[in-house]
């Protein structure tokens, strides 16, 4: 199988078959992470640039480890400022990097649309490592991988995505991914954090979490960005955690095999009480672990492995 896209900009662009194909590849890579020598020569001689316009620890580390385990040369290019404040245009940045002949660009940006803009300007394939409030496809894929691993299927499951949907790229990628694989997705949060027209992405909308708890198979709890002056969108973390946070007591109403997920980092005591974050329903660390396998598969596929995979 060959993917129809040269770059991974979002899950919106992928078909169900393509997503399943990526997940299968990831499953075959996962085993490498358990070997005593965690390195295979698959991408030897390939250069990957992690182009991070926004600070990130977990995603960058995950991509870096994934690249190194496949023997690629991974270079980190961090630019915390937007190109405008540096006086350089995005096309300048892109052309400069392209001149160094990388095989793949992994792009994280604070502003929505940067990976797509760059993909118009360069011929190097590109993976979106999260752009603004738009998409975070690799996170979406690792969420799918984790749920499928635990539940053996995604078709027919009921998924709730809880919290700041407005500002969440994870929510958008998860909506596309889970819907394409046959799950039913409901977004839940304070009305101010549900963006207009979100239903058109294929999900349902709810404003109260508790009534949904008995029927949900997966609860995807999003991070509330307390540092971004959220007071104009909701009154504060105390009220938020009361209505949209998860405690052990609230979980009494949930299914016995419910999965609690979170893209991290968790505001402990806000989205999740510590007992829930560390409790038996939580698969948060599985998500992190699977992130490496999923990114290994993606680096392989978008770094020219696609032709090999099709044969």
């Amino acid at each position, binding site marked *: 199988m060959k993917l129809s896209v040269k770059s991974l900009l979002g899950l919106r662009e992928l078909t169900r078959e393509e997503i399943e194909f990526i997940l299968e590849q990831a499953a075959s890579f996962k085993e490498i992470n358990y070997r005593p020598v965690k390195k295979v020569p698959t991408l030897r001689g390939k250069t990957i640039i992690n182009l991070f316009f926004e600070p990130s620890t977990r995603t960058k580390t995950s991509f870096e480890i994934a690249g190194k385990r496949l023997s690629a040369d991974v270079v980190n290019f961090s630019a915390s400022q937007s190109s405008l404040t540096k006086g350089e245009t995005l096309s300048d940045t892109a052309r400069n990097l392209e001149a160094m002949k990388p095989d793949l660009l992994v792009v994280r940006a604070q502003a929505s649309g940067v990976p797509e803009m760059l993909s118009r300007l360069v011929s190097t394939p590109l993976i979106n490592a999260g752009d603004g409030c738009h998409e975070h496809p690799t996170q979406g894929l690792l969420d799918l991988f984790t749920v499928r691993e635990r539940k053996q299927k995604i078709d027919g499951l009921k998924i709730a995505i809880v919290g700041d949907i407005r500002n969440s790229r994870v929510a958008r990628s998860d909506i596309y991914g889970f819907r394409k694989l046959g799950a039913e997705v409901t977004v839940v949060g304070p009305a101010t954090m549900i963006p207009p027209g979100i239903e*058109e992405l294929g999900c349902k909308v709810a404003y109260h979490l508790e009534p949904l708890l008995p029927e949900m198979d997966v609860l995807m709890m999003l991070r509330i960005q307390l540092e971004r002056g959220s007071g104009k969108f909701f009154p504060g973390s105390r009220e938020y955690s009361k209505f949209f946070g998860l405690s052990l007591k609230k979980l009494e109403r949930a299914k016995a095999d419910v999965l609690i997920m979170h893209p991290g980092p968790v505001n402990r005591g806000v989205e999740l009480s510590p007992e829930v974050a560390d409790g038996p329903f939580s698969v948060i660390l599985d998500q992190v672990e699977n992130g490496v396998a999923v990114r290994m598969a993606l680096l392989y596929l978008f770094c020219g492995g696609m032709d090999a995979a099709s044969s």
Partner: protein
Amino acid sequence: MRQVLRGARLIDPGQGIDEPKDLLIDRGRVEAILKPGEKVSEAREIELDGLVMTPGLVDIHTHLREPGYEWKETVATGAEAALYGGFSSIACMANTDPVNDNPAVTEYILERARLADLVQVYPIGAISKGLKGEELAEMASLCEHGCVGFSDDGKPVMDAGLMRRAMEYAGAFDRVIISHPEDENLSAGGVMNESAVSTELGLQGVPAAAEEAMVAREIILAEMTHAKVHLAHISTKGSIELLRRAKERGVRITCESCPHYFTLTELAVKQSGYNANTRVNPPLRSEDDRKAIIAALADGTIDCIASDHAPHNLAAKEVEFAAAASGISGLETSLSLGLKLVQEKKLKLSRLIELMSTNPAKIIGIEAGSLKPDMPADITVIDLDRKWTVASKNFKSLGKNTPFEGMELCGQAVKVFIRGKLFKLD
């Protein structure tokens, strides 16, 4: 030297003329409208067979960026862009650096325009000092030195009390107040229209209500003060409904829309892949809004078409969408996009000329927009059949920021007379 313009279809909506006529001009003024072929002695004959001749087009909303941002545009390059767009008169907004809130800046702009010696340039003065929305600018002095109206365009006057006083003050010498209708509390952080499209793209939205709340306020203040009030760049269906009702009640208020609002929608942001040339304020709206704008252009709710020519250099646009400057370089595509509506049978040609010449001239109260005898011989000659493709590299404007790149259009100005002086646009 007398000149007689022969063979064209003359459209002058102010006089209700739309038929083949010849036009006699002398010493920069219209001398007479003639029957086709009518004999004239001692006049240079100019053949305009198959072409359309209209009062010179007037654009009351441009940004010429001088003084202060000469790398984006100068009065001279903006005037040349206007000429090639078919305009004979333009008004320029006050958001220069320094702001046009004192007569020295007004005089400077007028001097640059005299040196350029192309289209007529009419400065619009600031409503508030420094566009800060706190204290009134010296509007009477600005008027004395040549400002034809007042606006803080680029920013709204958020303080309703100050806007009321501005209307009363300018009303006393019957100069127009041009409002930039945007409630900044509702638009804060937004970079495109708020809708399912902004949600999908992950861009912060500007709701239609940000415009409509301010349109409603300006209508109420116009009704209260009886001042001459004009609303810039109307972009939503809701604004149009408010204006339609206000006009039915007899409120003295006029408004404009721009070619991008009747040509494009928010989908352009998505289809262009976040191309910042589709970023403009107010933002490109929905298809419903676009249709409502077109209907309002036809039925008279919208009084005029203005380009909101907002030239920017490449570096201000080739960045993240949310970090990019707002605005479209519009002078050189405005007429052809208006003609597209005529070709699509949404507007009559004479109505388009009314929207682009007769009415805008009246709104800012300048001697233009009509070819009655003794009016200035400002004339636009249009070839309705000329096909061309938008290529920003050929723009006379320094601003190459257009969302219409590559669009195939039909109809263009081929000659402009300004005070009787002929400019050929080939």
